[in-house]
């Protein structure tokens, strides 16, 4: 695999020179440089609102000594700028080091010399813009013509191809050639004064073949159907209920309410409810929670591409790997970057991620999920006298310090005497994470397992993630409504 011309600047001589500059001054450094290319297509009401394309070249230089970090972002990438930026970054790290209270060293890891390429079937660079536009137009056509009550449609197509070079002081030299794609469909329906909307997205790491999957082809129809369905939905009544969550909500719960509290930087900053809980029981025995961002999982879901939250190596050069977070109800591991792993004296597990080369890697999730057990969905519903079945989420958030969480669901059905009844909209669920993990009364089987993808925000950076699980039932959840 040939390295992009723009990244050939980092030859042996330059790396040697940087190593010499670092010697006796700092303990660790890494440089990430990326050539980004991509397309944005935004159609609204069947008209193009944005057809755009970009090319940027970005570089961030990170330095470290004894607990203090420095970071320098370059605006122009040539040899003299790199050296100048490197020297500035050294000064910044030494300044941080002189003031920081927590002294530690980054544990040296084995250098990785490797090139990774996503083996897409239809390379994004080779796809004509007209082909991309045809797909978006077609989706706009489908959703806007679905019903007279549909007043507004929007379809957004985003793709990007990245050529990224990672170098660090351990001798790692990692080149990645990546492609990602996401399609987003939003539909607004109106009946008299009432407006309801539905949004769906499909994303993955891979090429244009992502557009040919069933999920991508049905996305606009799905949004249209959902928006119309919601026009008939009732406002919910607040109170405490048995709640059955679908895989998307289970995933959101696992990610938002629990996953963030497992990020070791949150733990070290004393913001996590899980601070002293390693080795302790935090959930019922049936609960197993995993984060597995490794490449190769798309085929588990019969997809011709890789999951949106997956990656080969993280942004600190550590290979992605499967991490068991909860095993049989017991908290086993946190998620780490090289800093938190060094400070907690364990091996890093590949969760140092940044949204670009000009942002600092943080501890982030990849594909977080709850493992399935043995309930069928029908059994779960039949077994529920009174409750709510909640599907799909709009958004959610959590106070990681207390574990108080809230999610807004898209669709919710009343359950009465074991039967699924009328549809409600805008149901919000709230509870305390650690209480809820002990109040799970049923976990669905393999056939109910699914996942969803999205962008997760933390500290101003959004990264690609997936989360999932089976249907689960939880007792005594607070449901908020307008009435």
């Amino acid at each position, binding site marked *: 695999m040939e390295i992009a011309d723009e990244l050939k600047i980092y030859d042996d001589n330059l790396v040697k020179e940087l190593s010499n500059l670092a010697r006796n001054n700092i303990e660790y450094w890494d440089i990430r440089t990326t050539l980004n290319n991509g397309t944005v297509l935004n*159609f*609204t*009401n069947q*008209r*193009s*609102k944005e*057809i*755009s*394309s*970009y*090319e*940027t070249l970005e570089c961030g230089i990170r330095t470290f000594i004894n607990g*203090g*970090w420095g*970071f*320098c972002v*370059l*605006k122009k990438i040539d040899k003299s700028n790199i050296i100048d930026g490197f020297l*500035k970054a050294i000064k*910044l*790290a030494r*300044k*941080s080091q002189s*003031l*920081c209270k*927590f002294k530690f060293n980054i544990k040296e890891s084995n250098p990785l010399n490797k090139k990774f390429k996503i083996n897409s079937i239809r390379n994004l660079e080779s796809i004509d*813009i*007209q082909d991309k*536009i045809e797909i978006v137009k077609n989706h706009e056509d489908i959703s806007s013509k679905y019903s007279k009550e549909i*007043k*507004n449609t929007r379809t957004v197509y985003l793709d990007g191809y990245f050529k990224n070079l990672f170098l660090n002081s351990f001798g790692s030299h990692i080149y990645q050639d990546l492609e990602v794609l996401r399609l987003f469909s939003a539909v*607004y329906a*109106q009946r008299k004064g*009432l*407006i*309801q*909307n539905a949004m769906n997205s499909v994303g993955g790491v891979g090429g244009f073949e992502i557009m040919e999957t069933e999920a991508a082809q049905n996305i606009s129809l799905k949004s249209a159907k959902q928006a119309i369905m919601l026009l008939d939905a009732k406002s*919910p009544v*607040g109170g405490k209920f048995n709640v059955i969550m679908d895989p998307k909500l289970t995933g959101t719960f696992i990610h938002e309410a629990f996953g963030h509290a497992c990020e070791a*930087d949150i733990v070290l*900053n*004393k*913001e996590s409810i899980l601070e002293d809980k390693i080795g302790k029981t935090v959930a019922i025995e049936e609960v197993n929670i995993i984060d597995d961002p490794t490449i190769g999982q798309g085929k588990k879901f019969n997809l011709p591409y890789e999951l949106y939250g997956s990656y080969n190596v993280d942004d600190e050069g550590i290979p992605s790997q499967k991490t068991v977070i909860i095993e049989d109800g017991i908290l086993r591991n946190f998620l780490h970057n090289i800093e938190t792993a060094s400070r907690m004296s364990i091996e890093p597990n590949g969760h140092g991620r940044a949204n670009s080369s*000009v942002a*600092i890697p943080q501890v982030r999730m990849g594909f977080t999920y709850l493992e399935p057990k043995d309930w069928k969905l029908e059994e779960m519903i039949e077994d529920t006298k009174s409750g709510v079945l909640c599907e799909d989420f709009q958004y959610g*958030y959590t*106070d990681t*310090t*207390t574990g*108080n969480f*809230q999610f807004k669901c898209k669709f919710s059905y009343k359950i009465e005497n074991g039967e699924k009844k009328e549809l409600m909209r*805008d149901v919000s669920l*709230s*509870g*305390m994470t650690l209480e809820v993990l002990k109040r799970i009364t049923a976990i669905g089987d393999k056939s109910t397992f699914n996942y969803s993808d999205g962008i997760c925000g933390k500290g101003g950076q959004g990264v690609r993630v997936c989360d999932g699980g089976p249907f689960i039932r939880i007792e005594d959840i*607070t449901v*908020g*409504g*307008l*009435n």
Partner: protein
Amino acid sequence: MQNKSDVSNLASFALNIAEKLTAKFAEIYFYLSDYLNIDIEENSIKNNEIGSDLGVGIRVINQKGSLGFAYTNRLERKSIEKMVKTAISMMRTGTEDPDFKDLPPKYEVYKTVNGLYDKDIKYLSIEDSILYAEDLIDICDKDDMAISQSGNFSSSYNKTFIFNSNGLSIDSKTTISSVSSHVIVKDKITNDTSFGFESQIERNLNCINGKNVIKTALKNAKRNLNRKKINSIKAPLILTPKGVISFILRPLASAINAETFQYKRSFLVDRRGEYLGPKFLNIEDNALIDGAVGSATFDGEGVPCKNKRVIEKGKFLKSGLLHNSYTAGKEGIESSGNAARDSYSSLPAIGITNMILQSGNSSKDEIIQNVKEGILLDYTGDRPNISTGDFSGLILQGNLIRKGEILDALNETMFGINLLDVFRNIEEISKESKTYGPFQAPFVKIADVQIIGSAS
């Protein structure tokens, strides 16, 4: 890009290519930001960062209104030529859009707004910046309930240049500096923990007061300790300025965005000219306040900025929408100067400048003292549904008020209301107000809100 004539030359170079390649309208936007950032984690300086972002974006539009856009951060002529050609090929694939009328004309006059640039920020060193971060750390260290703090100090110097095919050519330099604190406290007796946050954003460095920021964050955090569940009640809601911003002003900003409006995605559609709230309710979007964070002489398309009243004496004005040149052209009116663009990498969207809910007559203490039973709301992570105005969400930071006193923090307490009822039920507005970045708000009392408690 320090030299204006260099930028001008690059702009003419690009606009000429665009014209030759049949773009009827073209606009080029250059943006430079030099920034620094100091991160605090575990109440200790953790990271020092400096950086620079420089790039250019071009939008081209043909006779039929079809638009193409491209951007790059590579400023060599070769890259710029490639960018223009890409934008043209994007334009050629788009659909026609009869709603597009024109790019902004060349304006003769722009109003002067002072205090948007501070040379102390432009020339600020890391060493001097660290003093601001240390203010946060010192006060947190000395507090015996504080157990951790994350926060940051950051500043940036920004330059913008806009040129278009109508002869518009304008540039500005501005500065911005901010400090924020997110602090964790622990009650040593009950072992309960809680967080509080506070931030300040300013155009001028000497306005930044890190000590006040951490002190307020600590106060917020302590007020939120030892949370209790309550029963469901119907009661007044007292919003703090922060509460007003997140619960009223931010949603309103989305609801009066002309694009949202034209697509009928706003709960305020068909309500222009109606009285939404009491006579003492006034909301405006004012770009011309000296030294304010949201102020500007021109917007993201080079259109002069102004002061716009949105709600006057309770009435939602017909002219109360925020426009860029596209949405204004569609209605056959002038842009309100609200084209928002925070980088060369995006097309002009629509955004607020300084959004202000004007102060009232009551004192905030009196408002609270007169509440028999009610809720003080500082923060909900939730947001209303803009198309319906419906809101139901969790009170993340809020307290019970009883007999005029602020009591227990609330645990697992939600509330639900429609925004139209929020405006309708405004009973009192305080004299005291606070500014957070581009928002300014007082305390506001809203009557009869359904609170959903979880005490069993």
